[in-house]
């Protein structure tokens, strides 16, 4: 079933489990925020208890769904560094497999937002001359991100193919 998105060689290199943790934290934060809003709404609008409770249930259900989905999605990220190209796979519902030849890379970005820094992870973004290339690997441990960036950059220079 999954052979369509199977790794090119033996196995995918996985991203850090911290990515799933970070996304779970995000889900919880948003859910808590939604609950606070609901409480405020209930106090201000004097909602009937039934309506209020069903809203809470809906928010809770959504949060659980998001929790599960965020975890599955985070675990699904995989990449494979090969001699001449990089494979990236991601997505659970909408699946994508990208192949970027090193010779096509224009530059490599490493990005770590505040929350990512808290979890000591970063994302690496490969840019080609095409804006359509969606080659991003989130949730790499900071050291691995730096290593990958350096490796990609040097490989990209060695194999640069011009436009």
């Amino acid at each position: 079933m999954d052979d369509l998105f199977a790794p090119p060689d033996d196995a995918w290199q996985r991203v850090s489990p911290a990515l799933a943790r970070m996304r779970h934290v995000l889900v919880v934060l948003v859910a808590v925020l939604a609950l606070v809003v609901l409480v405020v709404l209930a106090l201000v609008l004097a909602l009937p208890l039934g309506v209020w409770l069903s809203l809470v249930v809906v928010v809770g259900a959504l949060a659980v769904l998001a929790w599960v989905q965020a975890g599955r999605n985070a675990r699904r990220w995989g990449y494979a560094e090969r001699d001449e190209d990089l494979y990236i796979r991601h997505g659970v519902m909408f699946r994508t497999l990208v192949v970027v030849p090193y010779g096509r890379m224009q530059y490599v970005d490493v990005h770590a937002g505040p929350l990512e820094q808290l979890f000591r992870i970063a994302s690496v973004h490969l840019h080609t001359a095409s804006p359509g290339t969606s080659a991003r690997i989130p949730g790499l441990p900071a050291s691995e991100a730096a290593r990958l960036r350096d490796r990609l950059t040097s490989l990209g220079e060695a194999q640069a193919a011009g436009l």
Partner: protein
Amino acid sequence: MSEPERPFRRLSPLTPLVRGFILVVAVLASTWDDVLGGGNIGPLGWLLLTMLLGGAVYGFASWLRTKYWIESDELRVDTGVVSRQSRRIRVDRLQGIDISQPFVARLFGLAELKMDVAGGGSREGSLAFLPLREAEELRAALLSRRDAVRAVEAAVEAAEPGDGASPAAPPAPVPERIIATLDPRTLIVSLLLSPESFAFVFAALFFGTLFAVVGNLGGVAVVPVLIGFALAQLRRLSAYYGFTVSETPNGLYVRRGLFEKDAQTITLARVQGVVVSEPLLWRGFGWAKLDVALAGYARSADSDGRPSASTVMPVAPRPLVIGLARRLLAEAGSPDPDVVALTPPPLRARWVAPVRRHFLFSGAGDGLVVSREGMVTRRTHVVPHARVQSLQLRQGPWQRRFGLADLQVDSPPGPVRVRARHRDAREARALLQRENDVARRARAARSPGPGLTG
């Protein structure tokens, strides 16, 4: 403070007038009556005249301070009245030079030289305005100088002598051979039969009946739609009028325009892919349109009614368009996109795209990846293997149920977008792997010589 020891040249002294033409006309028009009338032109008139005078002084000073000359394989441009700038444009970095004549400039026989510089992506250098003859001479001089410099560099690099992409560039004059022209009749007919006309007739009928039913304004409602449509088509007409494609040692040279004249060189080494469009109503005539994607020339196709610079031929018989396409794909060995075998998605794709399935084709062949889609306007997207940036396999949940997937070929920004949609999933994955290998070999083959073997 380094004064040029070389003889420099100046822009046309009419430059400030052309730049401020609108202002000049406006001021003169608004104050002329008063001047003739009683000499009393009022405070506003004085203000405008002062502005005009100030503008004229500034314009003159700017003209005086703007100098350009060619020195040690660089085009140097000094500008600036208050703070001075000195720009250097390396000749070997020039990708192309376009000559454009905005309407006012054309009235005075002037032209603007736009230099396209590698790496920048945007137009970095522009010289406005020069007498047309001078602009053409400068353009030819810069281009031949560039080719000479590049030839020397290639010789120094000395790997293999064949800079195969462009057939040995002779430095001296620029011989020009016209290979395609567009006659006005074809252009007008093609505009009347374009998809926009289709849309217009529908809109007119829809709003016409709507208003006829609701009120008695049937005719009136159509007017704004008609005006919008007419304006868009007139804009195209004036932009594409006199379209001429000619062959030069530097690539294809495209000239066009009725009021505003534009000229543009398409350097073959920058071609990333082509699109052949065939609107429904043109197919009876066997007509097609050709667009090209160029590196660093991020302009999209003619979509929102704006004529686009990516167009290589607005309308022509299909064989001619294919011929031009093959010329543009010279780097891939001038393959014929029509020879690439295109196959439709499997039958079960009807559950995902019941109607569109019949209009989706894709295939990879000698030197090219090709996909075709579109019901009303059939578009054939073509990318040489050597120009593939990256590849993507995509699958949504609904596609997964039927074992289908999309394969997308990423290209630099432009009109070209090859996508093999709703293919059998295994086939798509195999295609991804194969295309990746073929593209790698094609890239590798490009450096020593022309990648003739696909």
